């Protein structure tokens, strides 16, 4: 069994926002599955931590939800991105790209030409 990486602190919210942007309205289970699939199953997501993260995003106004019907015909909460959420996603994605670029340059083997 290959070793899986734990979700880094603070990145789960970003993943949720990105997932909702790509997929449109989605329920919790769907979001979780999608995050795992996107990471090609390299990420170990504790589903129990997903819901508090969703709640936090909702309290901050980045996402909203409404009742809908799931694939197996049950009532489920469907989350979707709000306008504020979209802005937050753009900003955080840019920050993240910048941070990884800097870190990447840092960790390049020494003397390697850029």
């Amino acid at each position, binding site marked *: 069994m290959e070793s899986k990486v734990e979700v880094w602190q603070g990145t789960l919210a970003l993943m949720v926002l990105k997932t909702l942007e790509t997929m449109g309205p989605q329920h919790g*289970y769907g979001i979780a599955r999608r995050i795992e699939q996107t990471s090609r199953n390299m990420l170990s997501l504790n589903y*129990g931590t997903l819901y508090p993260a969703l709640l936090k995003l909702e309290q901050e106004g980045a996402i909203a939800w409404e009742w809908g019907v799931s694939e197996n015909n049950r*009532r489920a909460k469907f989350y979707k991105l709000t306008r504020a959420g979209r802005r937050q996603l753009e900003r955080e994605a840019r920050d993240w790209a910048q941070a990884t670029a800097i870190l990447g340059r840092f960790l390049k083997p020494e003397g390697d030409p850029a």
Partner: protein
Amino acid sequence: MKRLRAWRMRIAGVFSRDRWNKEIAEEFESHLELQISDNLRAGMTAEEARREALMKMGGLVSAREAYRDRSTVPFLEHLASDLRFSVRQLRKRPGFAVTAVLVLALGIAASTAIFAFVDAALIQPIPYPRPATLMEVAERSTLFPLNDLSFPDFQDWRRYNTVFRSMDAFAGGAFLLSTKTGTEPVHAGRVSSGFFRTLGVSPLLGRDFSASEEAPGRNQVVMLSYAMWQQGFGGSRNVLGRRVVLSGDAYTVIGVLPEDFHFAPIGRVDFWSIIDPKGPCAIRRSCHDLFSIARLKDDVSIPSALANVTSIATQLERQYPDSNRGQSANVIPLAEAIAGEFRPILMVLMSGAALLLLIAYVNVASLILLRSEGRKREVAVRRALGASVQRLVSQCATEALVLVAAATVAGLLLANWTMQMLMTLIPAEKLSGMPFLLNLGLDTRVIGYAAGLALVAMILLTATPVLHFSFSEMRDGLAEGSRGSAGRAWRRIGSRLVVVELATAMVLLVGAALFGKSLYRLLHVDLGFRADHLASIEVGAPDKSYAKDQPRIALARDIVRRLEALPGVQSAALTTLLPVSYNGDTDWIRFVGRPYDGKHIEVDERDVSSEFFQTIGATLLRGRYFSDAEDESKPEVVIINETLARKYFPGEDPIGKQIGDTNLTPKSIKTIIGVVEDVREGTLDSEIWPAEYHPFNQDPSTYFSVLVRTSQKPEAVLTALGPAIQQIRRDIGVRGEATMEDFISNSMTAYLHRSSAWLVGGFAASALLLGIVGLYGVIAYSVSQRTREIGVRMALGAEHRSVYRLILREAGWLAILGIGIGAAGSITGAVFARKLLFGVHSWDLQSLVATAAMLVIASIAASFVPARRAASLNPMDALRAE
């Protein structure tokens, strides 16, 4: 922003917990089902599919917990549940809760009420701008540090000083205001023109006095107080330029003062006028009737101002030795002049209240300790089950919060009531000189002070149980020998405190009893006349209309005739000064035909009408009363009182003897025609002075009091007296309608004794309550500590009676010690305070014994409760305890 929004929603979440719980349950359920069906599709068995789904959730319970912590505010959740828990716990022991709240409320109330007075009188600056530079400037003589000035001296001081920006004089007084329906006396303020500018006060309406209006003939202008403007002139803006007639002179209204303006040294003022520089007193350098205020110039200190004014006074002393000998100057801050005299009494009251508060704190802490002792087991169990220390502390704090909040609310209500009660203890005449007390009440500063006291209580009541629990945990871990040492230490401290509390209560109770008894004796002192069914009214007729004796005598006769015609009035009479006023208005006499050594023989002198003695119900011992016909055309006669007769005519018949003034001028010689039993002319607590009574008709005046004897209740005729007199002439002033009994019980002396009795009584009742609660706390704690010992004794065959004896003996010792020390203290205190007592000895046995008995009974009651608990212990339970 984002964070704010999140917090708002979380706080909202506290209140919609049920909805959250249902939603999350449903969401988790749907999640699980989706995953189970996915798992089934992947080929797992039903059992495996469910197990794997739950695993991925990381445990349903902790997932739900994590979600819930995020959905609300855990601290608030705990607080709410702690609050519910505390209230439930307190309701289980209502006795404890009520006692603790009551004791704390009492302490907070006493302190807060007294603080309100201290704040109003001492802390709040006087209500004028830059109060630190506002001074009172007065004369200083050897006897009086603050003496009033004469107008010429004031003018010289104002002209020659180099230290004041401005200096202005003021004095109080009275006017007779002519109104449409008659004449009424009003309060006057007389000032020099710059008075309000020196204070820094501008008129609300109209203008201030101008300097030119100090000139003679130009000073017929007045300013109104706000209250007079509202009540007398309907608050109309047209009041400016209106003419008013005051004591027969016409004045023009030029301004109205602001609503919140007051000037304590004069007290209530309705009309402000300018001092008349040509007035009968103002023209004489020896006539002192003014005080003055001044603004210091920048950078001038009080001592240098004093030096400057003193040098002017010294100069005047040299210039006018007749009038100014021995007259120096004094400069003190105005604030000090206003509130200085209240400082000692307020400080004493404040210390008393602080002591009560301290005792209250200690007592409530001891009650809490007692309760903690009983809850040790519960706390230990909860600790063992994993309750965090933080959680226990927060729970103790919550319980303290509930108690303190209830006590503070109760305390504030009680304080408000106490303030009103204290206000009624201040005589009305005194109160008008303390306008800063007018707005006394629960303002923000007073509530802030109470909140501060509550915070201290909060800390104390949280720390006590927390320390107790951590001590007892430590104790359990230590060796057997050290067990209970902390408890013993508390018992020792607690016992001493209780002795002090009981002694304090004893001293105050004895004090209250002595003052109460004084008051009773005072109000039942022999008056020498019958005060029941007697009413009085003061009359002032305008001097201009009644300049000669004949119209004055006619007026007096007219008044008596009209009042006697009123239904219910049996007789009416006049006197220049009502009985039970004061010893004063005296005459220096000399006896005809006896050697005279020049020493003053000072006697009270009253001018009374012919029916006076019959009307008040005095007793004639010898001779006869005056007749109405005795006026200046007849020989001068006099009636003396028994004290004068006994003192100056021992073993002689005074009838027919003659007295005169110190020079025996022929006109002053009068013949004694009668002796009456002593009528109390002075205050209730003063000794009887020799007194002489003249016929009013031989020396008639325009200012006097009228007394009427009634057949029914005297209250019934009060309202009829004034109108009946004013029917004669509208410009006769009347005031002070009162029954004689009210007049006596409202006299200053009675007020002082009544105030002392109530004040000391209030403190005493509080101290008694606190002392008893303290005693209960200590004894009950002791019982809780000795549970095992008592169990052993009972198991070995001790009877209930001996258990009672054991506990009551402990309480008895404390009570006896407290009462003993208290008795010694109260006798010492009463000896120091004996000047304040009337007709009661400092060692009044009745008061001492009654108070001691009361304390003994209260102590027994307080210790009986824990003693009964001890005696009803089941020995087996007691042995198993701890």
